[in-house]
């Protein structure tokens, strides 16, 4: 391969590093109305009245909207393919507010000062209601969070909204209860993962304007332009034809921008006023009025025989979707299906879940999407099982590992077509120096060094649902335009997809032009989430390029007057043993007179979602007197199939591991007793700085995925899953305490040490 599997620079690299104005707020016109939202100070309340007279009089104020001024059609903000699994439980503005931060009034004016002043002058009278803040108290509480009559479900998700149950379900194979009875050892523990914030550096940003056709144009920092088009149209109760969405460069997403967050507010202001409007969330709002990772409590029962053969795995997940159900019914599934499957050899499996509403901020999508939470629980339980069996945790895993060719019982019955996890584990074991370092070494009176391990899997796209289409065009002097609907959010997918096209078309990268997403121009793509872009959109690129080559050969055969079957294409020319035409010439001929401008379209979706795998190994130094953890080294060994761009893949892994370290050690969205978010800034919600991460080392042990483009699977999400369980394991190995509730703070460690004395 000439272009694929090469560390090509990102196409947009130089404009990003020179600070070019390429993000939403950089390109918004100066004359946009500034849009801000007055937010609820109460976790649960009914609005009795809103007095806006004084605010309306503030010079420069153009538009103030309350729930009485907006369409009353319920929708979900979750960026999912229609019909969405998430319940329609939202209004743009509602008479009821269900968490601290829920929007109450939309204000737009000519400048920030006027809008801020107006916001201060609005008076809202609330009937304050008692909230539910603890997810364990949600089911069958006398307080009902969604009692509206027009609450709507697209299909059965095990919902019982009067019980605050957003979704529930179960899965079973074999008889877990019976198996557990006959097991030699059983681990039965509950693990608690917290809400986290995606914390991408660019906050939610959108601007909107009406074009000359009276259509609302939405320029927005999103992962899901096509879903935004549909959702905004539904929320505003206008036809989809009236909405156009454009995605410029994005300053990170990590799932946060897989939900509609900032788009609707300026869009409705533009609809009402006819004027351009923009809404740039500040960091506080980005924390407290968007969506977080789902908090989960996961109960694991795990049984094995004397030899360490895992017999039974049972998982019960209670997931907190917050005030609204975005991604609630879907994230929870991954906590079971994308964890147990690793131990496919077990003979019985059980997975039950409940997803509940509470009066906290809605949860949503965040890299890992439930698998991260499940991985902390099950991998921790596996490590605890190894202790009970008195067995090396690596040996235990390798004994029970799924294998290529397996039919994966707990993974929708799919067949495992590529897997090199065993070698990932072997490699990591060697790199971290497991044999010398496991379980721990004492460094001094107060310092212990120890190692920990975890393995994980994810998917590559949502099987049967995600779809991507691509168009490739041959332009008049022999270069190509690649039109995609997949959204590059910094991940480099524009570059990676161009690499695939260049490989197929046997040309250089600079012969491929890739455009950003514009729903008026780009072919449909469900969006960049669920680790789908490389695998699903990539496959569309391959299909489209092959079609284009066929078309070029047909056209060449007409010009050269030879049988098309005799012709070949080598990237420069189309030829047979006698005749030849250069690409350049062909392209020019095709756009003159009786030509035929060549465009090839292809769509792709996949019936399977082949899992990428990763083994994570950590070495920590633990201060046994303060509980402080220093990460020394983290080794991530990944099987993502063929790495299309090893350099960008490596950065994905490093970035994912660091986010995982943050989640493991201190990231936690917490609420006061009245439901106010306590850490809504980078001062209170700490993400890792470069001083907090030790050394990260990345290796690839690639398998070849036959259903993926050039053998590729996905990489974006799997990389965040191992740090939590691996670090928890290292802590156990250092000081013998199991921390089963994230984050693994020094305080928890030290107090557990003291209590276990």
């Amino acid at each position, binding site marked *: 391969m000439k272009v694929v599997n090469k560390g090509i620079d990102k196409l947009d690299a130089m404009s990003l590093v020179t600070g070019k104005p390429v993000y939403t707020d950089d390109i918004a016109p100066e004359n946009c109305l500034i849009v801000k939202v007055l937010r609820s100070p109460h976790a649960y309340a009914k609005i009795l009245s809103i007095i806006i007279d004084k605010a309306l009089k503030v010079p420069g104020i153009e538009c103030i909207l309350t729930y009485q001024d907006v369409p009353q059609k319920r929708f979900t903000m979750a960026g999912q393919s229609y019909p969405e699994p998430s319940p329609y439980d939202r209004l743009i503005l509602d008479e009821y507010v269900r968490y601290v931060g829920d929007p109450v009034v939309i204000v737009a004016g000519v400048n*920030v*000062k006027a809008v*801020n002043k107006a916001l201060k002058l609005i008076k809202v009278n609330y009937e304050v209601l008692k909230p539910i803040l603890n997810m364990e108290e949600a089911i069958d509480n006398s307080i009902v969070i969604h009692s509206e009559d027009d609450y709507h479900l697209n299909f059965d998700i095990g919902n019982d909204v009067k019980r605050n149950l957003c979704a529930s379900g179960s899965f079973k194979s074999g008889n877990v209860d019976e198996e557990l009875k006959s097991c030699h050892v059983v681990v039965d523990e509950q693990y608690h993962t917290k809400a986290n914030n995606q914390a991408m550096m660019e906050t939610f940003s959108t601007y909107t304007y009406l074009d000359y056709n009276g259509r609302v144009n939405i320029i927005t920092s999103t992962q899901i332009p096509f879903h935004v088009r549909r959702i905004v149209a539904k929320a505003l109760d206008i036809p989809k034809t009236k909405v156009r969405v454009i995605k410029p460069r994005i300053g990170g997403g990590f799932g946060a921008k897989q939900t509609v967050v900032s788009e609707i507010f300026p869009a409705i202001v533009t609809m009402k006023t006819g004027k351009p409007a923009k809404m740039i969330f500040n960091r506080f709002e980005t924390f407290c009025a968007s969506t977080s990772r789902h908090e989960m409590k996961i109960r694991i029962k795990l049984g094995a025989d004397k030899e360490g053969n895992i017999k039974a795995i049972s998982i019960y997940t209670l997931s907190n979707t917050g005030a609204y159900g975005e991604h609630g019914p879907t994230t929870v599934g991954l906590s079971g299906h994308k964890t147990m499957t690793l131990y496919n050899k077990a003979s019985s499996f059980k997975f039950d879940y409940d997803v509940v509403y509470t009066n906290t901020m809605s949860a949503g999508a965040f890299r890992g999407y439930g698998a991260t939470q499940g991985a902390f629980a099950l991998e921790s339980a596996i490590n605890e099982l190894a202790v009970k069996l008195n067995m090396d945790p690596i040996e235990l895993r390798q004994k029970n590992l799924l294998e290529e060719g397996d039919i994966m019982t707990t993974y929708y019955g799919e067949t495992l077509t590529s897997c090199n996890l065993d070698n990932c584990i072997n490699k990591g074991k060697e790199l971290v120096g497991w044999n010398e370092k496991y379980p721990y070494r004492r460094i001094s009176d107060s310092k212990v060094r120890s190692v920990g391990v975890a393995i994980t899997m994810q998917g590559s796209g949502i099987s049967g649902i995600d779809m991507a289409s691509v168009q490739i065009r041959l332009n008049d002097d022999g270069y190509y335009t690649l039109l995609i609907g997949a959204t590059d959010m910094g991940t480099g997918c524009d570059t990676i997809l161009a690499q695939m096209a260049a490989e197929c078309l046997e040309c250089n990268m600079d012969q491929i032009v890739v455009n950003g997403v514009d729903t008026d121009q780009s072919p449909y793509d469900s969006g960049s989430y669920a680790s789908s872009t490389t695998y699903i959109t990539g496959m569309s690129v391959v299909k489209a390029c092959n079609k284009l080559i066929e078309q070029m050969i047909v056209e060449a055969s007409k010009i050269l007057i030879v049988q098309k079957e005799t012709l070949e294409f080598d990237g420069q020319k189309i030829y047979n043993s006698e005749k030849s035409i250069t690409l350049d010439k062909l392209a020019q001929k095709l756009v003159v007179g009786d030509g035929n401008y060549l465009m090839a379209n292809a769509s792709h979706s996949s019936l399977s979602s082949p899992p990428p795998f990763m083994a994570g190994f950590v070495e920590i130094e633990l201060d046994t*007197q*303060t509980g*402080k953890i220093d990460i020394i080294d983290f080794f991530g060994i990944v099987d993502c199939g063929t790495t299309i761009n090893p350099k960008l893949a490596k950065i994905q892994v490093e970035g994912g591991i660091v986010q995982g370290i943050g989640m493991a*050690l*201190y990231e936690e969205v*917490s609420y006061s007793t009245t439901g106010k978010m*306590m*850490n809504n800034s980078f*001062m*209170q919600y*700490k993400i*890792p*700085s470069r*001083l*907090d991460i030790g050394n990260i080392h990345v290796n690839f042990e690639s398998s070849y995925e036959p259903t993926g483009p050039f053998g590729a699977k996905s990489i974006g999400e799997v990389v965040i899953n191992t740090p939590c369980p691996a670090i928890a394991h290292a802590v156990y190995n250092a000081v013998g305490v199991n921390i089963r509730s994230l984050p693994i*703070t*020094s*305080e928890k460690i*030290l*107090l557990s040490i*003291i209590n276990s004395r």
Partner: protein
Amino acid sequence: MFTLKDYIVPESIEEASQLLNQNRNNVILGGLLWLKMGNKNYNKGIDLSKLGLNTIIENESSIEIGCMVTLRQIEISKVLNTYFNSLLVKSVKNIVGVQFRNCATVGGSVYSRFGFSDLLTALLALDTHVHLFHGGVIPLEEFINMTYKKDILIKIIINKDTRKASYQSHRKSATDLPVLAVAISRYNSHWKISIGARPNKAMIALKSSELLSHRPDQIESACNQAVSEMKFGTNIRGSAEYRRELAKVLIRRGVEEICR
């Protein structure tokens, strides 16, 4: 977001003080890092940057740090890297980052008397006075416990003794506010144990310091004494119980470092 109607750069400290007292909503601007996060509507902002208060001066018997000196100046100051085992340098170097420390001022840091303040904890372990325009020169300890009166903090004056000192803090992540901060010093045989971020304002553990000054071998008792003579509280960074445990460990480490 705070608002400000007017901005003035006075030419003399007297003028600054006069401006400050003209209106209840006039305010001294330090590095603005804290001020700008508030929601207040201020009238006049008074910028002290033209008053020559941005230097660290070494005198015969004291070190004077002007209120407009930045935390970064402390960090790279030759004098402060020489005296007190670089106590002040160590106390500021975890604060956010270099650009931040190039902005944040000593005046803003000390005047605010934050509970979490690293600098205050460290200064308290030294022989430190603050020079206020109206209030005159008073010991830092007194200033810390005073009510917030409108005045200008002109400079900090530290007695240049041969004190040995140690700085210890625990943070959840490297650049976070401290969960607990401990500064300890020994001058001749006299010990001072200052504990901040409890999460309340830094205080000297008087009895514990005394105990150690008389019985320097009784480190364990001094640690226990410190923990029992002060109040520790709970906030999102840590519980009172954990802070008490940390305090014992950090005090012991500080004392041992000085004795080494």
